[in-house]
């Protein structure tokens, strides 16, 4: 037992050190970052954070990212719920093929696919809107959401459905009033994964936006190249990208602990 905790602590140190280094950099001036190695800021400065929090071009990026990530998370979970129910409770024509086809959408290498994506969303006048990025990100989040939710749903005994139908519940009423509360743990975990994958995705988000909906990840790359590597501001921006996700994981941590993987996957 002792040995295992020791290993875990060792790994956590390995996991935290680069993040510590980022926090460390975000509190330094650029001269100090590139000047010499120092384990903590010698001349503590909050200028980097001030730059981000006062410049609309910067904090607007966070707002844009949050908007499309939230739209994406809500839509992905909403459409995945009935589908996951269908996969966990019924057999139907082509179910296995459909399931695998959904997964294949995570597998297309982005480089060449970006151009058709741009053309597609431009042609329906959605270019540079939050909804475009949210829809494009559904391509890889929906299959994952279906997959994870299906695991949770298969853990709920089928007798519950049958009893509810005998008691005269219609499907929508049963699904919303009884079934969804039963798998709230699964919804929490799924929402976390959708949030995370949409939050860190760069290529599609950058391709589908220019000004109005430009995400924080794209703003970071632009500023870096233009200002000739403003390390301090970049590190501060990086620190701020962790905050929303850390809040999400804090809220779903107990749900994760309740576990899924109950039935087949």
């Amino acid at each position, binding site marked *: 037992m002792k040995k295992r905790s020791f*290993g875990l602590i060792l790994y*956590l140190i390995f*996991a935290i*050190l*680069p993040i510590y*280094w980022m926090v460390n950099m975000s509190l330094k001036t650029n001269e100090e*970052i590139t*000047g010499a*190695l120092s384990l903590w800021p010698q001349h503590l400065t909050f200028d980097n954070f001030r730059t981000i929090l006062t410049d609309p071009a910067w904090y607007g990026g966070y707002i844009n990212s949050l908007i499309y990530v939230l739209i994406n998370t809500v839509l992905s979970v909403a*459409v*995945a719920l*009935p*589908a996951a129910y*269908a996969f966990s*409770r*019924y*057999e*139907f024509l082509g*179910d296995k093929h*459909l399931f*695998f086809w*959904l*997964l294949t959408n995570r*597998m*297309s*290498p982005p*480089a*060449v*696919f970006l151009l*058709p*994506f741009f053309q*597609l969303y431009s042609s329906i006048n959605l270019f540079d809107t939050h909804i475009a990025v949210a*829809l494009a990100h*559904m*391509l890889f989040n929906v299959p*994952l959401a279906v*997959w994870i939710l299906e*695991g949770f749903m298969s*853990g709920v005994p089928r007798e519950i459905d049958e009893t509810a139908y005998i008691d005269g519940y219609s499907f929508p009423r049963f699904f919303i009033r009884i079934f969804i509360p039963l798998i709230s743990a699964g919804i929490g975990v799924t929402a976390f994964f959708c949030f*995370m994958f949409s*939050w*860190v995705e760069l290529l599609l988000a950058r391709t589908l936006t220019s000004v109005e909906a430009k995400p924080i*990840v794209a703003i970071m790359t632009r500023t870096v190249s233009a200002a000739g590597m403003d*390390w301090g501001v*970049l*590190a501060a921006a*990086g620190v701020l990208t*962790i905050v929303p*996700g*850390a809040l999400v*994981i*804090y809220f779903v*941590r107990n749900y*994760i*602990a*309740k*576990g*899924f*993987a*109950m039935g087949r996957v």
Partner: protein
Amino acid sequence: MKTYNNKAWLLVLPVVLCVAFSAIVPLMTVVNYSVQDILGPDQKVFVGTEWFKLVMRDPELHEALGRQILFSAAVLAIEIPLGILLALALPAQGWRSSLALVLLAMPLLIPQNVVGTIWQIYGRGDIGLAGAALNGLGLDYNYTGDSMDAWLTVLVMDIWHWTPLIALLAFAGLRAIPEAYYQAARIDGASRLAVFRFIQLPKLRGVLLIGLLLRFMDSFMIYTEPFVLTGGGPGNATTFLSQYLTQKAVGQFDLGPAAAFSLIYFLIILLACFVFYSLLQNAGPTEKAEH
């Protein structure tokens, strides 16, 4: 038993529509590119399988593919066992568990380009903690000059970034095992190893399949991190498949060959995932019946 009912299609329909909207048009467009020579917006010549033949003979592509396979194999061989070990070591509940989970998950939330930039500084011998520490230990570590060091840095960076995903999935899977299983094992006097082999591992099969496929796909398409960290160098040491593809598609603007390349790339991932999926789905059929 599941009931056979084709009305279930109605429940799946929203997902199919949403995904098909973003999936089919781009895929068909790429297929279209791959069989044409695009000379200008209105000038296209049908060239059949010409681009596919060209791409298949490209020696640089073979090299990039080799590097890619090695990289993905290393990623899977390290991240999956490490993730399982971490999940086993995590405390089951209490504040220690919450703290460890939040700390563990943090690297997952950092966008890929930030990961690359942070490691760029972190690994530098003069001003980065990791680089300075390694040099201090007497190792001649320099990721910008030495191809082996660059390759290992990308690997360690990926392990740092994504092992928590496996750990979280495995942790969730472990929590779903009923206490009764462990009690039965204790009564039988099963060793720690036997509990892992015959109770925990079979029960983790489902989540590990998700983790394995996700890590395989994402590591096989890794782009941003090595691009930011090393730009594919030194030489070609860290030019993985998707970066080579981007060089072709954007740099040389060879849309036809790049599209053919994309499709081959896609098929490789598809095939590998299908093999993993089928193997793991059928690995332990007895597991399916029980909860």
